[in-house]
């Protein structure tokens, strides 16, 4: 979130009285700072400059709404306020800050608008005062050499930048404290850690603005030149955000496509993804691992698309051949996603989610720590969700029953550490068994599901079947439709 977006008070819970008081306090601060500005420096040198900067400020404030993707904000208002502190002096900057927030696109509460005006006008005044106080230069005649400009404008601007950033964080944290009751210190810390880095960038660009405006004597036209590349950057960030969201939705379509084949199993992928993420969390790993394992859980059965529909909804016991065909799905899934670079962290989890800790699983027969970590996690989540889902041949197990089954199999089928984590995760999060409707049960067929522990044990006891599955890479290639050459047009 960006610091210049205090639209939060509208969602205030224990609002009004305290909030009104607080906003009155902010207005008092703004008025006091403005008075100090008038006393210190009097009128701004050029009202034209103030008018141009105010126009830019209004335009930037109206543009601020668009979300430009995660952890990216470009606050042009902050840049303009910083430049105004030098170019317009304390009074000019206060006017720029106040005017910028007067116009609103979306109708917001009056009190929010008043708070914003007070906030930005205070930041302007304070910036101008601090800049003068630390001895910043503000006339072209004194900025004679590159060195003087760097020391006499650059350094004071850094101080100004910090002051504005702190004031912004403090006043905002205050309003959040009053409106939502969250402690000031955590709010200040959060605001500074999310926008602190951006303020460094604003500082540099504000400096460029001032250099171009005063010593290079380009005046108001510098706005066009400095902001043009930034507008393009902003445009690209917005495009990025759109494309990012589009990509997320398309990825979801990949999962939906798999579920069109198995409508009775809808939601399984989603649940396995969620449970896998909880498991990794309980094991104390970081953001990246959680993401990778979650994606692996989401896509672990994507290879089922290659399994004939009649086997997925079988009306009879599965034969050995059927079992081998179904077991292909692990490697078929890998084939589907291996060309997608950003899924590279999830491929192992998809490939090996049917390995067993004792080495009797498929497709590679890996044992213990040889099995990739993500696969050991997805395996547990996958089977647990299967157990707590009702089947045609048995009702859904309760959480504690399923947990017992899992515990019995720790060390043989599953990694004991992950099963332990499962216990912890389920203590922390709510898990509801999935009860399916009668129609869904009928559609699912009567064959034992491939995720059941029984299926795993069956394959574990049949080395001949496992050997056939392990030969799968070649088999998968050959099982693609072989087209007789003589057919076609006759």
């Amino acid at each position, binding site marked *: 979130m960006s610091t210049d977006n205090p639209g939060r008070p509208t969602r205030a819970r224990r609002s009004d009285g305290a909030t009104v008081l607080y906003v009155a306090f902010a207005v008092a601060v703004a008025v006091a700072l403005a008075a100090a500005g008038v006393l210190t420096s009097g009128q701004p040198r050029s009202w034209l400059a103030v008018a141009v900067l105010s126009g830019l400020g209004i335009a930037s404030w109206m543009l601020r709404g668009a979300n430009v*993707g995660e952890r990216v904000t470009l606050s042009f208002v902050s840049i303009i306020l910083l430049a105004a502190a030098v170019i317009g002096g304390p009074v000019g900057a206060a006017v720029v800050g106040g005017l910028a927030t007067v116009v609103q696109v979306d109708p917001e509460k009056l009190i929010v608008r008043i708070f914003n005006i007070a906030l930005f006008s205070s930041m302007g005044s304070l910036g101008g005062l601090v800049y003068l106080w630390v001895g910043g230069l503000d006339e072209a005649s004194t*900025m004679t050499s*590159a060195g003087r400009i*760097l020391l006499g404008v650059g350094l004071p601007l850094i101080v100004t930048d910090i002051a504005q950033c702190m004031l912004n964080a403090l006043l905002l944290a205050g309003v959040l404290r009053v409106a939502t009751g969250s402690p000031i210190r955590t709010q200040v810390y959060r605001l500074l850690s999310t926008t602190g880095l951006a303020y460094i*960038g604003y500082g*540099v*660009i504000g*400096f*460029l603005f001032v*250099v*171009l405006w005063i010593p*290079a*004597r*380009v*005046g*108001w*036209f*510098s706005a*066009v*030149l*400095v902001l*043009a*590349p*930034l507008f*393009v*950057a*902003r445009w*690209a*960030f917005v495009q*990025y955000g759109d*494309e*990012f969201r*589009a*990509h997320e*939705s*398309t990825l979801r*379509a*990949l999962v*939906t*496509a798999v579920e*069109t*084949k198995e409508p009775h199993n809808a939601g399984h992928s989603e649940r396995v993804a969620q449970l896998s993420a909880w498991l990794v969390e309980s094991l104390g790993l970081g953001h990246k691992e959680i993401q990778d394992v979650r994606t692996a859980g989401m896509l672990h059965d994507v*290879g089922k*698309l*290659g399994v004939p*529909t009649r086997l997925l909804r079988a009306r009879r016991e599965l034969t050995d051949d059927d079992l081998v065909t179904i077991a292909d799905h692990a490697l*078929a899934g890998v*084939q*589907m*996603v291996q*060309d*997608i*670079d950003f899924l590279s962290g999830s491929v192992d989890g998809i490939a090996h989610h049917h390995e067993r800790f004792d080495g009797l699983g498929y497709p590679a027969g890996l044992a213990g720590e040889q099995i990739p970590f993500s696969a050991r996690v997805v395996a547990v989540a996958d089977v647990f969700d299967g157990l707590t889902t009702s089947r045609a041949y048995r009702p859904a197990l309760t959480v504690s029953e399923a947990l017992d089954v899992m515990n019995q199999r720790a060390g043989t089928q599953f990694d004991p550490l992950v099963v332990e984590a499962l216990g912890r995760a389920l203590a922390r999060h709510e898990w509801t068994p999935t009860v399916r409707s009668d129609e869904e049960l009928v559609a699912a067929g009567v064959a034992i599901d491939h995720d059941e522990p029984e299926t795993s044990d069956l394959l574990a006891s049949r080395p001949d079947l496992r050997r056939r599955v392990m030969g799968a890479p070649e088999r998968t290639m050959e*099982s*693609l*439709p072989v*087209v007789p*050459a003589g057919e*076609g*047009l006759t």
Partner: protein
Amino acid sequence: MSRMHIRRVDLTVPVVVAGVVTTLASFWTGIDDVPHLGRGDLVYLSVFLVAIALGETARLTILTGRETAPMSTAAALGLSLSAVRGPGDAPMGAAVIVSTICLGMVAGTLFLRVVNGSVRWADTAARIVGAAVAPVIYRHATFDGRTLLSWQDSWDDQRWFVGVVMLLVGSVAMLVDLTLEAAVRAGRDHAPLVPAVLDEIRSAAGLATALVASGALIALAELAIGVAALPLFLFPLVLTYFAVQRYATIRMTYRQTIGALSSLTELAGYTGTHHAQRVTDTSVAVGRDMGMGQRELTDLEYAALLHDLGQIALREPIPHGATVMAAPADQQRIAHDGAEIVRSTGVLDNVATILEAQTTPYRQVREFGQDLPMASRIIKVANAYDDLIGPEGTRDDRAMERIHLGLGYEYDPRVVDSLSRVLERRRRAAPSAPG
């Protein structure tokens, strides 16, 4: 037909020659000035030289698939417009400036060649010629008896006007650059020239604006703080660079995900190996040949990749996945199911529309005036061609014969003409291929 041929000249060789001539000519005329350069001038020029060379290594692939080097171009423009003085306190001549730019760009490209293995010299040549335009106009051409650079002194009290003039000169240079690069690309892709240039300018307008503005920024700030302006005022452009780069990366990821969706039918055994990829290659080649813009091409590419997606809802695969053999009603159901899956993403509506109409015969347009997307007509022809040439790709003549039978009724004649041209080029490129 002859008009088409004129529009399809390959300008790669002329552009490379122009680049080489520019470089050599600037060295030839600039060499006399070099002994008179002071130490300060040399330092100044080398700072720009290094920036241009470094900028050249930070490449960016934009929407049209063109590679640009924004920092290099902006630094070159800044140097071209700067008021730097040369020997005898006269303004530095255009020849020395162009030489510096050429040296920097060639050095950067050479470095990339060593590190990455392959670069496109024609693109660099186009950029060199474009970059040389600005100093020639600004420092050499005379308007009313004086160069723009010397006019700049008389406009000293109206620096904003100087800024406007700089933006104009930069825009002209940028236009030359974009036109030449689009010409090279059109030659490479066998696309008609004029639409390619227009598309390039449209797609690159944003980045080009940022580049031209940065060039003017550097030149103007240089008046106040000297050569320190270069690193400082490239900063906004660096931000732009990263933003555009992120955009380019996510686009690539997106393309991969669509590719994975496309391979679903293949892995599920519904369609033949690489059928979707071949149809896509043919469709995109036809689309380019017909002068489609980049956005349309992207939609066409995605739709072609996904054109058989609807088959995964079938219970039993149809023989070899060849939809051209299926009954019209089945074809339409497959198209419809595919469009529905794609539409469920909520973000690919254009692609869904194309998919929906991919089986509609062309006569609907002729007889009922139905509005059929060009992309759908292309996919219809490309899909039929790929289904008809047979698994070994040996029935080329018979496939075209069959398609010609449906000309005007099933297939759009313009698309079929374009397909013939594309196939003709393929045969010429690989004379030993079966066919």
